[in-house]
């Protein structure tokens, strides 16, 4: 690759995680000269593969690729760059300490059949639930997949985009529209309790409503999270997050973007209120017309910009933007495939623990006091099914996101505390996979502290800012909600921007679009 002149770049992108790579690929494809700067030695950020034990590779910290935007896959021709997607969405298993558990198949009929073993009423209810989600999906995705509308145009009238969105909501018909509006401020527990009676089913569905948040299923706002999740989930990427990163990187390079790793941005340079470039590795200056930051917005605005670059109001808003990490990652190397007592022999890819909404809420409670529950809530991805390269023959890997584990532990995080966390995870696993403790070759425990230092995310918040109702509606602040910032030429489009975190790549794509519109 030709080494470009320092002043030749149109866009410098801070961070080559999944959003940075997406933005880079989109901009490069449209003919912009792009440079991506990644502080780690490999690209991918929270989606990057990690060989955590010799011969065993974990998928990224974030392991759920079911939300990747398919419009983006088309737009970037990612399939030409090696991306493969499963034909169907994954099934999700909710184990029980005593019993077969519930395997929720992606096909509503098959799922209903299994739910019927618990409750015939819920079997019917589940089909109606899916039908409702299908009806509102276009509206919800319309909001998620587009730049947030300008509420008011410069003349003080209501903006055109707002009207369009409002119109699409009204076209749902009075009943669904009323229901959609009603759900937004609710808690997942109340909403699910209206639909279903089976505890296990409700717990399974409620999981994503609270992952990566500082909420439990009884917290208002979690119902919106749940709805968003239900609307956007689709099939998994073959090979998981790592394969997604591979394809994005190939695409970005193919379209002409440059990528530099081991390049730590320590400052964004400005002149006369305009962003002019960045300084990396303690002194090397790089110039560009635009700078896009995909690191978390607190870092961008409060650490990387020179003081005085933003006003006090924005400083205060960003300072009070809540980004408390509540997730730990545990990667498990096993010398055989995991044996699920409730489903012997069945190839299960995704598992969520918690047998009732109360259990999920109880798992959440301690994080408010700087502790975690002895039976924490686990979100497990078993990659060996589709990615046989991640472990030696016959062996396997478990990627476990442990929820409601505080960044600030009462006492302190140290080696012993991390060991205790690992033990709690293993104990929880062995309740439905007995004997697993004897198969463990290695266990890597990353608390929010390790995630912060390794991936550069403030307080280890995996979504760059909590998915709370106010922080989803306006993300991260009003003046930065449409990717631009008050600093001319500086854009933000990581997970801390609309529509939020997780492996969707939407913020990256929309941020790139904003830059294209303005350049």
């Amino acid at each position, binding site marked *: 690759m030709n080494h470009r002149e320092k002043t030749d770049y149109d866009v410098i992108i801070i961070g080559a995680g999944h959003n940075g790579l997406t933005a880079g690929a989109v901009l490069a494809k449209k003919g912009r000269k792009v440079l991506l700067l990644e502080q780690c030695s490999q690209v991918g950020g929270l989606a990057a593969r990690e060989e955590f034990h010799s011969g065993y590779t974990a998928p990224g910290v974030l392991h759920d690729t079911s939300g990747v935007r398919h419009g983006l896959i088309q737009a970037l021709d990612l399939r030409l760059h090696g991306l493969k997607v499963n034909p169907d969405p994954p099934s999700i298993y909710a184990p029980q300490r005593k019993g077969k558990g519930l395997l929720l198949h992606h096909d509503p009929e098959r799922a209903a059949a299994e739910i019927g073993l618990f409750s015939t009423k819920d079997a019917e209810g589940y089909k109606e639930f899916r039908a409702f989600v299908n009806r509102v999906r276009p509206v919800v995705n319309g909001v998620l997949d587009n730049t947030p509308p300008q*509420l*008011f145009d410069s003349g*003080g*009238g*209501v903006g055109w985009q707002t009207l369009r969105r409002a119109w699409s909501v009204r076209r749902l018909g*009075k009943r669904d*529209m*009323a229901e959609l*509006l*009603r*759900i*937004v*401020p*609710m808690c997942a527990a*109340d909403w699910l309790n*209206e639909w279903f009676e089976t505890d296990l089913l409700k717990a399974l569905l409620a999981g994503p409503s609270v992952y990566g948040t500082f*909420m439990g299923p*009884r*917290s*208002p*706002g979690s119902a919106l999270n749940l709805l968003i999740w239900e609307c956007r989930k689709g099939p998994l990427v073959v090979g998981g997050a790592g394969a997604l990163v591979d394809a994005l990187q190939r695409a970005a390079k193919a379209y002409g973007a440059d990528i530099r790793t081991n390049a730590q941005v320590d400052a964004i340079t400005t002149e006369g209120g305009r962003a002019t470039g960045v300084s990396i590795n303690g002194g090397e200056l790089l110039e560009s017309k635009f700078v896009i930051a995909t690191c978390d917005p607190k870092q961008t605005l409060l650490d990387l910009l020179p003081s005085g670059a933003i006003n006090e*109001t924005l400083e*205060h*808003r960003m300072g*009070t933007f*809540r980004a408390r990490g509540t997730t730990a990652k545990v990667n498990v190397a096993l010398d055989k495939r995991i044996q699920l007592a409730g489903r012997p022999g069945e190839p299960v890819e995704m598992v969520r623990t918690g047998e009732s909404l*109360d259990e999920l*809420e*109880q798992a959440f*409670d301690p994080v*408010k*006091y700087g502790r975690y529950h002895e039976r924490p809530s686990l979100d497990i991805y078993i990659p060996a099914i589709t990615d046989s390269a991640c472990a030696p023959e016959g062996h396997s890997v478990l990627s476990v996101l442990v929820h409601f584990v505080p960044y600030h532990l009462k006492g302190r995080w140290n080696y012993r505390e991390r060991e205790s966390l690992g033990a709690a995870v293993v104990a929880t696993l062995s309740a439905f996979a007995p004997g697993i403790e004897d198969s463990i070759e290695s266990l890597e425990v990353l608390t929010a502290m390790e995630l912060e230092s390794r991936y550069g995310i403030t307080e280890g918040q995996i979504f760059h800012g909590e998915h*709370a*109702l*106010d922080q989803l*509606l*306006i993300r991260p*602040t*009003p003046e930065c909600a449409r990717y631009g910032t008050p600093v001319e030429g500086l854009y933000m489009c990581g997970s801390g921007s609309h529509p939020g975190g997780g492996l969707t790549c939407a913020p990256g794509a929309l941020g790139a679009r904003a830059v294209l519109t303005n350049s």
Partner: protein
Amino acid sequence: MMNRDSTLSRRTVLSAFRIMSKKYDAIVVGGGHNGLICAAYLAKAGKKVLVLEMRHVLGGAAVSEELYPGFTFSVFSYVVSLLRPHIIRELNLTRHGLEIIPLECSFLPLPDGDSLCRWADPELTRREIMRFSSRDADMYPEFGLALKKIAYFVKRIVDNPAPDPTSSNPIELLKMLRLAKSFRSVGDDLVYLHTKLLTMSAVDFLDMWFESDVLKAPMSVSGIIGTFLGVRSPGTAYVLLHHYMGEIDGAFRAWGFSKGGTGQVSLAAAAAAREHGAEIRTEAPVVQFLIRRGTCKGVVLDGGEEILAGHVFSSLDPQRTFVGLIENGQLDPDFVSRIKRYKLRGSSGKVNLALDRFPDFSCRPGDGPHVRGDIAIAPSIEYLERAYDEAKYGEFSQRPYLNVVIPSLVDPSLAPPGKHVMSIFVQYAPYYVNGGPSSWPEKREAFGDAVVDTLAEYCPGLKDAVLYRQVLTPWDMEQQIGLGEGNIFQGELSLEQLLFQRPTAGWARYRTPIKHLWLCGSGAHPGGGVMGAPGELAAKTFLGTLGG
């Protein structure tokens, strides 16, 4: 040919006929403060009104009773704040006996013997807060100002029938647009702040302003009164604002005692109603709405008596109204299921004490202005959140949040000289307690003990001073005054059942699916508290339609 004599006699005949026909223009079911205020407005407009109250006393939850000889208790609701000034004016409630004595302060005793008092006087307050944090002392008046600005704006929504975004009526949509634009005129900052207020938790919202727990804890509590949420639950910042909007004589955030107890509010409204010709009957429980061909024609009392009316106004909670008092089949099943999922879920209790002497608080002993306001047992945010955690799983809080007032200190008419009444509001006491709501009577005394024991930690002589104790659980509130599931607001103040969704979308303007049946209690917009607004707005909506 018409001569004067025959005109007079015609009038006499007609009025005699009206008395005999016993048909009212309006029946108001429920003699609580909203029902009585609704009745007063209707009567003032010349309507022939009958109020029917099931108990022997008027007032519902806004009631004063002499439960123990010589001691008058505000049995349920114990402070007044949200009562709209224009209602007081328009109904002349002051002339009818309403007198509000402003609360002087909010007192927070702490377990380590320290305490914080916030006064009406800003300088005094500043000095108190400064002992804990000088930054917070500076911030406190700023916070008040910002909230006042937002409250003015929100008040415009609250004081009017809620606009309905799901309506297809173009006039409705224009109203929504105008509302949206007035948002804009308030300025971006306040729009942002308002969004935050609607969605954040009380603690997170207060974290944006203050650093000391000692300030945040008692302030956050107004976000959870009467809800089944914790101070860290999203959505509680809005409830904080709702309570902040309390006004007395135009001064925001000023709360007060009603002289003679909270029941005086209801009695004053009743007097106003009677003055305009309304009839009020007590010990007249309504068991059904009389409905023929989809129209409400009147009511049926316990015992079978039917009373006819052109319109019926129900101030009962939505579930009792639609599910309890309407026969099966009269309502669309979809509407019924929506009402059934309307959340009542009472979460609070009350303990009323008659004391034979003044109860000393060990951190600030003796009588004084500090005990003439409200006293909060809310020593930290963690304490408050843990109280909620317990209740989530079906138990009352062993270490509950308490809000205590000793109104006899400022209103000696309430108790014999030297003796006192003490009102203790408690959270949390979940209606759906383990064992089911009907098991509450077995737990009542233990609940009362937890309350008194907790307070006694701050007020050591308390137990010895108790002459009489009344413990009210959510079950008791439901049984005694018909408050569904003991929710003091006739339904949680959560966003999905407020504004255009109270009690349910499409029916938030006091009309109901049954023609001539109206809703006028706290289960209608703008919600609960001793506000009088639902009663007033229901009456005015009705009167507006018929041209007065």
